[in-house]
């Protein structure tokens, strides 16, 4: 598995490589985009705050990456009329003349246009396309794309089922959660994230506090760090299961973050991946992460977990409630199986955790 690092400038490449990045992604806008399409987003983030300034900078990024793949995000959920032909032309230029390995695409219209233009093999399906089951995976595989990025809101068990052969698979690993599924949030951060002011509704009191706490963890604990490490959503303890599920690429989020935060995130991911590759258990990975990052209390109740079902045997269970429907009455709690290995036998599986 490779660590996929975010970028917005050429001088970030070498420090991120040294920290352990194996792939990069960045946003870049076509020349003249703003004049033609105003404030419409090309790549889901502010072009100024998170984007590569221009194609010359992109060329330098590709050169500094020294063969490590660089992917470009054309991942707005929708584009204005007239934008798709322009983006196809731009996407072709990126892969054929600027060394970009693949284009990360969310909008179906653009995806279909790129496939039509013979670029399907250079398309990665964005997490915003919400590929959440093997049938959806088969659909995208049928388009001829090369990789699917899984959305955030999936369990490990679901990933294991969804990651079918014939595609590369990418999963979220660190930072920047979403209260809503990003692909089914039809709002824009241009007005500030919609979820920030969201409440449960109608004076829910304690529940609103719990909702606010969850959103705070998703927002990197209020954008805090510990020893320089972002205190954000994290899937490091799940690395062995992600490996077994067939995940190829591990996404570190945060194109717009300062370089030191990006480097710290990649470094922490590399430490955990190294531990995992030696056959360590989830507990050993967690201990290694906490030893480096600190803030052990945030790991105690799986508050920061991208994939909390890695600890499914320790999570709070649903209270017994009066079912609202006959179907609900018949519903049995679905226990997510965890491939936990007893402590005494962990050494036996080293080198072959799958």
């Amino acid at each position, binding site marked *: 598995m490779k660590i996929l690092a975010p970028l917005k400038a050429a001088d970030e490449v070498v420090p991120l490589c040294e920290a352990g990045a194996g792939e990069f992604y960045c946003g870049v806008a076509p020349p003249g985009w703003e004049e033609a399409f105003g404030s419409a987003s090309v790549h889901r983030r502010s072009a100024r705050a998170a984007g590569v300034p221009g194609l010359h900078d992109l060329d330098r990024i590709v050169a500094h990456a020294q063969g490590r793949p660089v992917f470009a995000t054309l991942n707005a959920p929708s584009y204005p009329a007239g934008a798709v032909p322009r983006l196809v032309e731009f996407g072709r230029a990126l892969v054929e003349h600027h060394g970009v390995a693949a284009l990360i695409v969310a909008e179906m219209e653009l995806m279909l246009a790129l496939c039509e233009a013979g670029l399907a093999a250079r398309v990665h399906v964005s997490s915003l396309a919400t590929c959440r089951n093997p049938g959806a995976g088969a659909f995208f595989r049928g388009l001829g794309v090369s990789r699917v990025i899984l959305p955030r809101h999936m369990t490990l068990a679901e990933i294991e089922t969804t990651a079918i052969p014939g595609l590369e698979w990418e999963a979220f690993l660190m930072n920047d959660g979403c209260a809503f599924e990003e692909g*089914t949030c039809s709002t824009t951060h241009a007005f500030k994230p*919609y979820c920030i002011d969201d409440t449960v*509704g109608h004076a829910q009191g304690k529940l609103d506090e719990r909702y606010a706490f969850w959103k705070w963890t998703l927002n990197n604990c209020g954008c805090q760090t510990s020893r320089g490490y972002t205190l954000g959503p994290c899937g490091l303890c799940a690395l062995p299961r992600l490996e077994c599920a067939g995940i190829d690429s591990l996404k570190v989020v945060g194109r717009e973050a300062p370089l030191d935060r990006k480097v710290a995130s990649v470094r922490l991911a590399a430490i955990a991946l190294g531990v995992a590759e030696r056959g360590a258990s989830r507990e050993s990975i967690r201990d290694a992460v906490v030893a480096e990052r600190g803030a052990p209390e945030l790991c105690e109740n799986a508050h920061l977990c991208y994939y909390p079902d890695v600890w499914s045997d320790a999570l709070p269970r649903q209270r017994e409630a009066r079912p609202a*429907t006959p179907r609900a009455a*018949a519903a049995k709690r679905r226990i997510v199986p965890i491939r936990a290995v007893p402590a005494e036998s962990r050494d036996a599986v080293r080198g072959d955790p799958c």
Partner: protein
Amino acid sequence: MDYGLRLTSPSEVPSDPRAACPDGWRDLLPEGRTVALYFGSEFCEDRLPDPAEAKAWCEAAHDRGVEATLATPLVSPEGLRSVERLLDGLAVAGLRPAVVFNDWGVLGLLRERHASLPRRAGRLMNRSLRDPRAYRDAPGGTATHDTGRHVRLRALLRTLGVGAIETDADLEGGYLGERDDGGAVRLDRTLHFPFTYAASGRGCPLKAALYPEGGGFAQAFADPCPAPCRGRPLPVQRPDTALPHWRAGNTLFYEPPREAMRSWLPRADRIVVHAMAAP
């Protein structure tokens, strides 16, 4: 105008479809007839009906001479199996609803296992911008209704045997296309009314309330839910928009300005009237 009705119970079908619409919206709607009864869920797999409930809706539709239309959401692998079991059960009972899909996996299931069921592309297939805050400076909306958008997607849906596309009012327009832009293979154009979805996800706060403190949200994505949201959308106040908002389980809906909604009506062949916001 043709109408689909999204009601809370199959026993409440009004003679005039506009009567199912919340107060304050009915006068915008043209005369028309009810052609379909919608049931199921567009947004939450835990709200998919059990076989008995689905059968009741199908029979109610049959009794009224209208099409039963099962809405399905984005689904997990287990949700995909649930949809499959549900459709298998209905087929055994001789019931053949139209199916609204919001997931490519569900479309694949329909094509492979239930090819005779009419297929309708649901509103989550349209990922255009719907941010309610954009109406602060543009109460009429910003939709250009340029039908040059999504041409390839509509062509793909036609080739995959889809007979209709559905959406709610977004800020860009054009998704539904022209009435006859596919030539002989027409896509029926359907508008959901009057609630537009703003955001949806699996971290449902109402589901989280079923767990002790520290549980729920991401820790409960795969757990089944007894649907405490059923029949009870909650009004939500926001500091950044005056548009009425509703939390319906895992999804936030809002009511767009009337001017914006009015611009969508001539572009639809069918209006799905929602009695209340529901996931």
